[in-house]
Every structure is written in C-alpha cells, then in structure tokens.
C-alpha cells in the first residue's frame, strides 16, 4: 500500500500536534526554568514544519493522477499478501501465547506454517523446524539462561 505524500504528511502533522499538546501537560522541573517539556515541544515543531512541507509538496507538485492510496503489487497478489500477513500474525501469536504454550511448541509451529506456506517439502520442513527450535532452546534457553517460556512442557526437564 502506498499513500500519497500529502496523506503521509497529514498523518505526521497530526502526530506533531499530539506531541505538542501532550508536552503542554508536562509539569516543569522544580526549581529550574527548563524541564521535560521543552524538548518535546521542539521536536513537535520540527516534525510539524517538515510534515507541512511534505503536505504542500505532495499537493502542489506530485505527478498528476497520483492516487491518494495506491495498492502495491504485493498486496494485489494473494500469495505475497498472505505471506506478509502470516509473518505478522505469527509473531503476534508468539507474543500472546508464549507464556501459555511455551517456546518449543510455538517455535516449531511458526516455522512449520511458514515452511508449508512457502512450499518446502513437509518432511524436510519438519526436520529443519524441530532441529532449529531445539538448537535455539539449547543455546539461548539452556546455555545462555534466557528464560524462554516452557509453557505446556513445564516440568519435562
């Protein structure tokens, strides 16, 4: 998806306005004239100024006929669109489920889904997925003591 420059500019302008108004609510540093509110206001002004320039430039000088929203090729092709959404959804699923399900089952599932989707032969995919996840668990979880959640496998080792 590709938005028109003016649309991008407008979104960033809204962000700038938000930062500025938020900064007005920051209390000053006790006993000093310049506190935590000064810098956000400067950032908001800079962001706002350049987004105005982008809005103006897009509106005035964009090639005629540039649509407000152009659909990128990868969004039109159901396969690449699916790939994109899948990678995204799987990562979110990991964040939400890792404590309950645990790293090993979830990691294998994520790799398998992506492999199958990319038409990797499933037996080969399964071997690689299990090997990679077990290796990662061993390296990060056991050797480096990163507390990768064990989830449903809690108590097995």
């Amino acid at each position, binding site marked *: 998806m590709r938005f028109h420059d003016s649309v991008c500019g407008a979104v960033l302008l809204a962000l700038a306005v938000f930062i500025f108004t938020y900064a007005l609510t920051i209390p000053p540093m006790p006993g000093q004239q310049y506190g*935590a509110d000064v810098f956000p206001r400067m950032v908001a002004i800079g962001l706002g100024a350049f987004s105005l320039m982008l809005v103006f430039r897009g509106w005035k000088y964009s090639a005629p006929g540039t649509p407000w929203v152009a659909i990128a090729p990868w969004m039109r*092709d159901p396969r690449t669109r699916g790939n*994109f959404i899948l990678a995204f959804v799987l990562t979110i699923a990991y964040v939400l489920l890792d404590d309950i399900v645990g790293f090993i089952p979830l990691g294998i599932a994520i*790799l398998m889904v992506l492999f199958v989707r990319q038409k990797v032969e499933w037996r080969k995919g399964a071997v690689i997925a299990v090997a990679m996840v077990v290796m990662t668990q061993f390296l990060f979880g056991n050797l480096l003591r990163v507390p990768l959640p064990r989830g449903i496998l809690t108590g097995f080792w």
Partner: protein
Amino acid sequence: MDAIIQALLLIADPYVILLICLSSAFGLFVGAMPGLTATMATALLVPITFFMPPLPAMAVIVTTSCMAIFAGDIPGALLRIPGTPASAAYTNEAYAMTVKGQAETALGAGVVFSAIGGIFGTIVLATSAPLLAEVAIKFSSFEYFWLVCLGLTCAVFIALDDPVKGMLALFIGLAVALIGLENPAGLPRFVFGVTDLMSGIEMIPAMIGMFAIAEVLRIVAAATTRLPPARAISGSIFKGQWTLTKKYPKQILRGSTIGVLIGALPGAGADIASWITYATAKKFSKEPEKFGTGHVEGIVESGAANNAAVSGAWIPALVFGIPGDSITAIVIGVLYLKNIIPGPMVFVNQPAIVTGIFALFFLANLILIPFGWLAIKSAKHILAVPREILMPIVLLFCIVGAFAVTNSPFAIGVMLAFGLIGFLMEEHGFPVAPVILGIILGPMLEQNFVTSMIKSDGSFLGFFNRPIAAGLGVVTLAVWGVMLLRGLKAIRVPQTA
C-alpha cells in the same frame, strides 16, 4: 605501551580466536545472502554478545561487519544482486565482468582492495581517534549540542536526494526518544500508564525490527524468493591483483580516504561511501567510457572505500558516542550494556579496550583475504541455501534475540512494531537510518540542550560564547542554510514519482 600488550594478550586468547573464526564465517554467509545486510548480521549477534566480556563481544562485531561488507560483492558479481547495499554501486560493473569471463578478477579485486581499504581505515582510526579524544575532553554541553546537531544534519544531508523525508524520518526517531523517563527531569513522558514504556523504547529490539524484520517482510512480500543458480569460480582470484595495485594506486588511496571520511560522518556508512567513490572513480578516470562495461577501476576504488568506511564509522562512535553508521549505532548500544560509555574518557579509563578494537580491525582485515578466498570458492553453495527456509529461521532468531535483551515479550512487540514502521517507511520512500540515529542521539541532544540553556540563563548567545562551540555552531547553521535552499529547490523539482 602497556595498553598495547594488554590488548594483544586479550586477543591472543584461543576463545577470542575461535570467536573470530566463527564470526568470519557468519559474516561472510550473511553478507553473501542477498537481503541480509551487514547491519542485520550485527543486530542478530547482539543478544549473543550480551553474554560475553567486552573485548570478545567487540571481536565478534568487528569481524562480522568487515566480512559481511566484503561478502556483499559475491552475489553482486555472480547474480547481479548485491548481497548488501554497500555493494550495490558496482554490482552492474562486476556482473559485466563476469559476463566477459572475468569473474575471478572482479571478486579477487573485491577481496584484495577491501582488505587494503579496511587496513587504511584502521590506521586512520587508530591514529586520529586518540588525538580527537584529547580535544573532546575540553567539550562541554554547548559543544556536544552542536556536534549532535551537526551529526544529525549530516545524516540527512549526504544520505538522501529527498531531504524533506530524511528530516521527517529523523524527527520520528527523536519523537520515539521522547518516550520514557530518560530526560533531565526524570519525569515519565508519553508512557500512557504502560510500565514497560517507563524506561523508553529499547534500542536493540527497535533496531532488530527496523533492519531485520522489515527485511524479512520485504522478502516474503516479494514476487519470487528463489535465486538463480550461480556459477562456480574455478580460476585463481589473486592473479593480476598486484598489477592492478600498481596500475591504480591513486584510486586506492582516494577510495580509502573518501571511504574513511564518509564512514566518520554520522549516519552515512559503507553504502554511501561506495556510491560516491564509484562516481569519483568514473569522474577522474582516464577511460570513463569503459565504466559499466566490465571495467575493474571502479570496483578497485569503491571496494576499498566501503571497507574503509566500516572502520571510519568507529571514530565518532568511540570519541563522542555518536555513531558513524548503523553498525556502530548498534555497537554503542552494546558498549553501554558492557558499562563502557563511549566518549573521550574511554581512552583514559579503558585504553586496553580501545587498543583492542584497533588490533581487531587489523586482524579482521588481514584474515579477510584467506576467508574471502574460501567464501568465493564456495559461493555457489552459499547462494544455493533456499531463502524460503532461511527467512522463517531469521524471523525465529529475531524473536528470540529481542526477547533475550530484556527477557520480556514486550520487546518482541516493540520489534514487530518497528519492523512494520520500517517496512512502511521504505515503501513510502522514507529512509530508516535517520530514525535509528534520532532514537540514539535524542536523549543526548535533549540533555545537552537543556543543560546549556540552564547554563546560559536561557540565552541562545551562550551557544556561541566558547570558541569551539561557536565554530561548530556556525558550521551547523551553514549546513542548515544549504539544506534549506536545497529543500526549497526540492519542493520545486520533486523527485518522487
């Protein structure tokens, strides 16, 4: 002298040597895989370096980045796909040489002149950094304020043909840096009651997101993931390189010098260095008409430049704590984790680390020759690793890597959010490097600005009262002036399609 011996002892450790060999292999592999960049290689290594003493951690990063930048030449020459953006400038040239049957010469030139450029860069780093540190010790908040401004501006100024979007990217980074407690008053800002945001956006998950996740998304969204098969390299790659060295000494020197300078400028790294030096090589060449037809001259100059830039970027990173490129941006994060605060005092307090880094650069660029030779010889097989298997694995490592930094799933969310932001920004023609620079330098800019305002009782004149500050201030304002003119011109002649 003590520092040198100490540094050498630290490196001569078999543990460190083994790490160097492993990271060489890793760096060459990642650099040679199209779509995986040197920055991404470094970002993926951070969680591992987290568990190492400072010097081995630096060894891993230095070796990986040197190797990856060179290895980017391999698929460029063989498949016409640059392995990393730093090789993009001369990919067509190298491929044209391959078509003419000179792949050995093209890749050999890549190895040899990368090593020469890298060693030149290291010499400049090792001699200039301690001298600069002597000067930097006299810097107070005013000088640092201007220095940070100048660095941020340079990043936008040289990197881009669209300064408006570059500036916006920078301000987005600065806006991200506002989140959390890290401000002069220690007040929580923009946290909206989320405890995980109190300490601000963690830099490393954000970087893994912008450099690795965004790339994964881009590849899965690309029409094809399969690479064409590459041909094997059979002949000797070193044949004729000595002749080239004698033929193009000026090009090597110019490429290395420009490379190291551009590397030292904040925000611009190896990729920009190679574009610029490819252009200078063509401009000053006696036979410019041969460029693009498989002529080695440009490869010699920009091959030297991109590796010189890798070392050059460490100069401002070590002396001022201002990253010279996106790799050193990550390095600064790692140094902070190791309780080494980059700045002039590092040269006084931890000279062994500094000397150790210099020595590591020498070593990495020397072993680049044998390791590079191996990589070229096995290029055919490296490039045959299917990306549809590699990409999901990279995603898995990103998830574990982001998690490992803070041990919280929140970091994975941060990584994913920045991956999406990075992907969308590139789709809309915004560069991502200035965002990272903004996130890193935002707190430094704020701290120095607020302190300076307090010191000068709120008068902007105070920013010009000290001679060095005044000089830096004038230069910064001049650059802003030029940028403003260019920006106005860019409004009249839009580059965007």
